[in-house]
């Protein structure tokens, strides 16, 4: 049976500055990040013949190709969802280059969600999706928004509260994730938040939606990230060491936004668990082989659930796992979000995690795991989700 295993590689990464407000449009940040990724790959825009984006991305393929001067695409696709889309873009790009549907595929995410860009779609675009809730709700939203369940923090708070109830997880465990990632970010010059924090700072930060505090929540950032995916054969000639895509998988089960449906299937064989099974099966490796993990972290306890879903600890034991120091670089057994993640580097809807996975494989992270051979990157694991394993 054919698979994408080892058939493709990421050979270019690019990004903009990350900021609370860049003062430029979402169209421009997309162009900047994509141009940087193409240059990093040692290619020119004319070499690009495929684009994969999130289906909620505001920049269309057309907007990208006419700005960058990409003459012609042979492959273009979008992946459903926001944070659930991240690694699915790489899976599609790998499929395209493995089957000859494209040679060099750009995947990207661009968004202006910085603190000073969120107040609507002004001249720079952007804004929080939930602030645009319509006064008359279509079907999908009718069963939760009228009750004041509006934002991702509120939705996820319900899931994490239940985890606390079932397993004895505490908000201190959440805080240990936030502290570890901020410590990682303190070494990262690209990170928006570099000032170290303590567990006491976390516990003192204000409630957003209990049990989530401010310091459990991702940043709101302006910026963009992009990568170039090519075939394993062409990757040998790249400027930088390729990050080969050892395996990739997606899963869509019950979506968290329809909370009722989600809990009907309470995290059994769906979501991250289903992805992990496919992923490790394709890769022929297990959790013990992973050198560093970039987990989607819109909220700090998302890391706890991912540690369990991807088999680094048993169900319900992620709190004690984090308390034992396992996710902290340099001494932990599994350094997590070594760039600072969405909590401290930037929130680019998870795309900066792919770039950091590539840096670990290249050996260029500001929290480099020595001789890292395998890096796991995941999408948000309560939505439609996905993950990839990158290898040296």
């Amino acid at each position, binding site marked *: 049976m054919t698979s994408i295993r080892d058939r493709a590689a990421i050979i270019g990464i690019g990004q903009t500055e990350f900021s609370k407000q860049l003062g430029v449009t979402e169209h421009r940040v997309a162009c900047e990040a994509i141009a940087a990724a193409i240059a990093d790959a040692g290619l020119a825009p004319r070499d690009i013949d495929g684009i994969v984006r999130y289906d909620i991305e505001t920049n269309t393929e057309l907007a990208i190709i006419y700005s960058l001067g990409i003459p012609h695409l042979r492959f273009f696709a979008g992946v459903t969802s926001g944070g659930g889309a991240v690694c699915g873009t790489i899976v599609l790009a790998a499929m395209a280059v493995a089957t000859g549907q494209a040679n060099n595929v750009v995947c990207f995410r661009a968004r202006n969600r910085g603190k000073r860009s969120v107040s609507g779609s002004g001249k720079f675009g952007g804004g929080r999706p939930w602030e645009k809730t319509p*006064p008359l*709700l279509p079907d999908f939203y*009718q069963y939760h928004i009228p009750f004041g369940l509006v*934002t991702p923090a509120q939705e996820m708070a319900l899931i994490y*509260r239940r985890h606390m109830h079932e397993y004895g997880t505490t908000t201190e465990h959440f805080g240990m994730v936030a502290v570890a990632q901020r410590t990682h970010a303190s070494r990262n010059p690209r990170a928006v938040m570099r000032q170290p924090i303590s567990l006491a700072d976390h516990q003192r930060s*204000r409630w957003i939606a209990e049990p989530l505090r401010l310091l459990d929540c991702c940043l709101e950032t302006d910026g963009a990230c992009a990568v170039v995916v090519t075939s394993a054969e062409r990757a040998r000639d790249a400027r930088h060491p390729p990050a080969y895509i050892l395996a990739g998988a997606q899963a869509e089960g019950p979506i968290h936004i329809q*909370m*009722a*449906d989600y809990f009907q299937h309470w995290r059994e064989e769906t979501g991250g668990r289903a992805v992990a099974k496919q992923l490790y099966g394709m890769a022929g490796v297990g959790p013990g082989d992973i050198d560093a993990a970039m987990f989607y972290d819109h909220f700090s306890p998302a890391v706890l659930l991912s540690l369990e879903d991807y088999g680094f600890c048993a169900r319900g034991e992620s709190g004690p796992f984090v308390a034992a120091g396992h996710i902290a670089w340099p001494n932990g057994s599994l350094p997590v979000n070594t760039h600072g993640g969405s909590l401290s580097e930037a929130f680019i809807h998870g795309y900066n995690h792919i770039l950091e996975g590539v840096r670990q494989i290249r050996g260029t992270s500001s929290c480099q795991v020595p001789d890292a051979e395998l890096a796991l990157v995941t999408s948000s694991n309560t939505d439609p989700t996905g993950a990839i394993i990158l290898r040296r």
Partner: protein
Amino acid sequence: MSDDTSDQPRLPLPVPNADNQGFWDGCRQHELRLQRCRACGRLRHPPRPMCARCNALEYDWARSSGRGTLFTFSIVHGPTLPVFQARAPYNVAVIELDEGQFIVSNIVDCPAEALRIGMRVAVVFDDVTDTVSLPKFRPAA
């Protein structure tokens, strides 16, 4: 609603469609309804056009006991939509109905510190406009 000229933020409201009209009509009549597949009898919520077990399109509306247990909740402080921010902190809750379905709602007549996962609750209806009633839940024995 059309002659409401106040500057108060409006509560976002459901717009019933052909697949869920029975649910919202039931709420208006202060009756919590679950969709029931006419082919296999399975109950479902939220409403949808097809039975996920047998794929039958035919359904009717079964009256729920309106009783259940609190499965999980959050106390929301914000940021949130202005209409809800005005009443923060407030709770949002997922209730597991005795029939086995889950429903998102609020627990009313209960201080935040008294909320407990597993507590028994029963439905009450909040007539938020002349045409829309929302199912809420209050502590029950």
